[in-house]
């Protein structure tokens, strides 16, 4: 596998191994992820791409039997250092989940929750501003501005997912992790979210896990192909989809395995 060495990677993983009890889920993954880029993780179900994504904001900490070894550096700081508080890390590394999961609270409270617990706003006016900015960035402002006090769970699926994106960016993260953000959405909502991901690239380093190769091709600049816990190939998206080096990658994108 070709080693892609970047000058200033946002995230740099070296020799990452993940074990779930006796299962070896991630096997020695080395990857460097650039800032202001959309990086897609593709691969068949159970290949470890979501597991690896969840290592990047230490969401795997919540699973008792999960063990992570190796180094993951964000801005050259080891996020598994004992001095790192995962709470601070997760404010810096936002996450959007597979199924839209707004809190059963108002739209406003959904977005305002993160800034509130991190003390990002000194007063109501500042909080209002953060909420509006986040909803605008998530392309939900025009639809939601008149119903901020209504429950977030009352929105449509696509709107809910954009609300979750707004909630994630309200804490001013530098990295956005998206775990199959469109798998529960219809094609129109998917297109809206994809458009949004492209815009988010201006401000964040976006890492997206997806089942859909077309989606990876549409939204990402870099693509990593995972298979059976191994990072098989990682390169520019165009390269992966037109001229993959590894035969396994070729088989997957041409539909022979998966």
């Amino acid at each position, binding site marked *: 596998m070709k080693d892609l060495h970047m000058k200033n990677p946002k995230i740099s993983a070296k020799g990452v191994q993940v074990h779930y009890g006796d299962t070896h889920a991630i096997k020695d993954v080395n990857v460097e992820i650039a800032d202001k880029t959309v990086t897609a993780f593709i691969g068949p179900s159970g290949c470890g791409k979501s597991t690896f994504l969840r290592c990047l*904001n230490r*969401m795997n900490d*919540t699973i*008792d039997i999960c063990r992570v070894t190796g180094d993951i550096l964000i801005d050259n700081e080891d996020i598994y250092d004992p001095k790192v508080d995962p*709470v*601070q*890390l*997760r*404010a810096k590394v*936002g*996450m*959007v*989940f597979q*199924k839209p*999961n*707004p*809190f*059963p609270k108002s739209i406003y409270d959904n977005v305002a*929750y*993160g800034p509130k*617990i*991190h003390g990002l706003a000194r007063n109501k006016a500042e909080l209002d501003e953060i909420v509006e900015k986040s909803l605008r960035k998530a392309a939900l402002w025009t639809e939601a501005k008149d119903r901020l006090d209504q429950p977030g*769970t009352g929105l449509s699926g696509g709107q809910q997912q954009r609300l*979750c994106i707004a*909630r*994630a960016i*309200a*804490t001013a993260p530098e990295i956005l992790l998206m775990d199959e953000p469109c798998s529960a959405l219809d094609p129109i909502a998917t297109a809206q979210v994809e458009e949004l991901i492209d815009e988010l690239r201006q401000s964040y380093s976006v890492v997206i896990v997806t089942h859909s190769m077309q989606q990876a091709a549409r939204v990402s600049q870099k693509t990593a192909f995972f298979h059976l816990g191994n990072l098989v190939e990682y390169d520019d998206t165009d390269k992966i989809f037109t001229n993959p080096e590894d035969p396994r990658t070729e088989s997957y994108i041409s539909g022979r395995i998966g």
Partner: protein
Amino acid sequence: MSYKSLLTVDARTKRRNAAETRFKAYGLAAIVMAMLALAVLLTSVIGTGASSFKQTYATITVPLPEDKLDKSGVRDPDVMKKVTTIGYSSLLKNGMVAALQTAGISTDLNAKDIGGMLSKEAAATVRGFVLANPDVIGGDATFELLMNGRIDGYFKGRVTMESAALDGNTSPEELALAQALADAGIVRTKFNWAFLTAPDASDQRPEAAGLGVAILGSLYMMIVVLVLALPIGVAASIYLEEFAPKNRWTDVIEVNISNLAAVPSIVYGILGLAIFINFMEFNQSSPLVGGLVLTLMTLPTIIISTRASLKSVPPSIRDAALGVGASKMQSVFHHVLPLAAPGILTGTILGLAQALGETAPLLLIGMVAFVREYPAAYTPEAGLFGEAATALPVQVFNWTQRADPGFVERASGAIITLLIFLLIMNAIAIFLRRKFERRW
């Protein structure tokens, strides 16, 4: 291959349909049985108990001469206390006889029997009034006084002329006289507030027995249970469900909590007797000890229902909270707990309802005692909830053991009261669940 017609039902389908029909019939039969049992229970309890909410009183004017009640004439309550209820009984007898004369009713009964138609409690009522208001001495005062249990039973249909003829405590003549007094408007049957407010009465006075002390005792115990079991139970559940590592120790704890929920309640009574009374030396018969024992008994119920409602909150909500950088505790208290609240409240109220109806452990810690004094919530000597009391279900148990048939009616009345409290609590549980239930 030949095609089978859809219009004919084949043997296999027939058997399946028959099995389904049989199953439905079994289910229906079970429900009908349950409804019948409930109907029989309610009919029997209400049939015997409803009359305890009515009581027969005589309104008579009693002369209160100074030479009988306060010879010294100084109106000093300590001196006046020397006149016992026996002294007052003769005055009541005179009052009854005078009432008969005024109403123009003639009878062959002697004055002693006429006086005996009033409850033994009546003399105590008048004595208490006179001691509290010494100024009335020397004049007359009008009282509404309890009739004795047999006369009361006659107006409720429990005592008949035939049964009275065989009864040493009354006679058909007394019943006839009581009827004449009722016709004259002197004796009336009215709603019995005293049943809910008065304390228990001795074996010979079922007509005076009330649930006041028992209701107060049950209320104090429920306060103790709520204040202790809810926070401890919810905190324990949150810790076990959200924070505790999943290992052999937590498995052992989990199994033990389930086992504790199935421990017979009398075992908690023995535990309470040994620990709270013998070792910690809290007061016997006190609502504090009763409440502590019921807390121990209710805790497993609350923990199990709270854990179930915490489990039912979708994990995606926890992920969402952790994902925006909430700490574990923030995710639990800001998101999980509010969503689990309706289930927790329902479980708690049902646990309380169970505790309210519990009898066995209270017998062991002395709450079965005969208590006439209303227990105070706090006294410097006895401490918080430290004064002796009884409880509603124990009062039922107590009354069913007494000889006088009047207590059968009282016991059923107490059961009705207990059932009403339970219904109210369950209604509150349903109301809270409906009100706070959220969909996501």
